[in-house]
């Protein structure tokens, strides 16, 4: 029975199930489901601590957003621990993180976004050519239709129109933002003291 757990065959499937439940919000992935599907020969009493250990390892890796050096060091330490993991299992975990890292990071970032997001955007340009007071006018306006909301909830759809002069100004403001983003990110990557590990 314990031999089953030490094998790495079903571990990949287990990690997928754990990721679905812990990061991607998939309901209904119970420990009994995982056990019966992946480790049917193992009793629930034996399976539970094993599952907890793997869940803990996966969460630590995701939480720290480990790069490959950190991952190797972390997994090596786990193999040396009493009641840790085998080197085969370490290899499976490493392979799993490398191929699923981006998706898991995306889910974690989405989880921490609590305000409405931009769900849809479309626009058209209207050109008015005549009005009651004036035979010929040509004042084009842009009309935008935006849909904002949180996933799983009702979306708020609204329209707004913008005159040409206003649109030029907004474009200038938006350009400033692109520069600002690079500046902020560089400050972070420069390893300024006290910036990490709080």
């Amino acid at each position, binding site marked *: 029975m314990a031999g089953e757990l030490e094998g790495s065959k079903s571990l990949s499937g287990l990690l997928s199930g754990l990721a679905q439940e812990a990061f991607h919000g998939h309901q209904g992935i119970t420990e009994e489901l995982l056990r019966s599907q992946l480790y049917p020969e193992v009793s629930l009493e034996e399976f539970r601590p094993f599952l907890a250990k793997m869940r803990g390892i996966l969460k630590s890796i995701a939480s720290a957003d480990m790069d490959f050096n950190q991952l190797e060091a972390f997994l090596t330490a786990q193999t040396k621990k009493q009641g840790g993991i085998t080197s085969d299992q370490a290899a499976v975990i490493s392979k799993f993180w490398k191929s699923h890292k981006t998706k898991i990071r995306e889910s974690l970032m989405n989880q921490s976004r609590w*305000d*409405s997001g*931009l769900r849809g955007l479309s626009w058209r340009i209207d050109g008015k050519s005549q*009005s009651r007071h004036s035979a010929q006018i040509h004042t084009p306006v842009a009309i935008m239709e935006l849909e904002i909301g949180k996933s799983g909830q009702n979306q708020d759809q*609204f329209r707004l*129109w913008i005159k040409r002069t206003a649109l030029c100004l907004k474009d200038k403001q*938006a350009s400033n933002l692109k520069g600002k983003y690079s500046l902020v*990110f560089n400050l972070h990557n420069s390893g300024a003291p006290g910036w990490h590990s709080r």
Partner: protein
Amino acid sequence: IREDRFRCPPDDAKPVAAAGQLIDFQWKLGIAMSADSCKSLKSPCVTVALKVTDGLGNVTCKSFEMTISQFQNFHSQFKEMASVL
């Protein structure tokens, strides 16, 4: 029909569809450093606030968040509109 009910400036091209006028656009850039679900999050996020008036003096504010790539798409849509206008 009373004349003043339809009073509007001669060259004011208000679209017929029920749309408010964008009168202000504000943005802020933040980076979520850490969260309970992820200690090392480092997730940049742009929050945009649009002030829209309905022409009767009522102003509403709509705000929403975007990832950097969503914001870049948002910005390029504005640029495209500006180029057509």
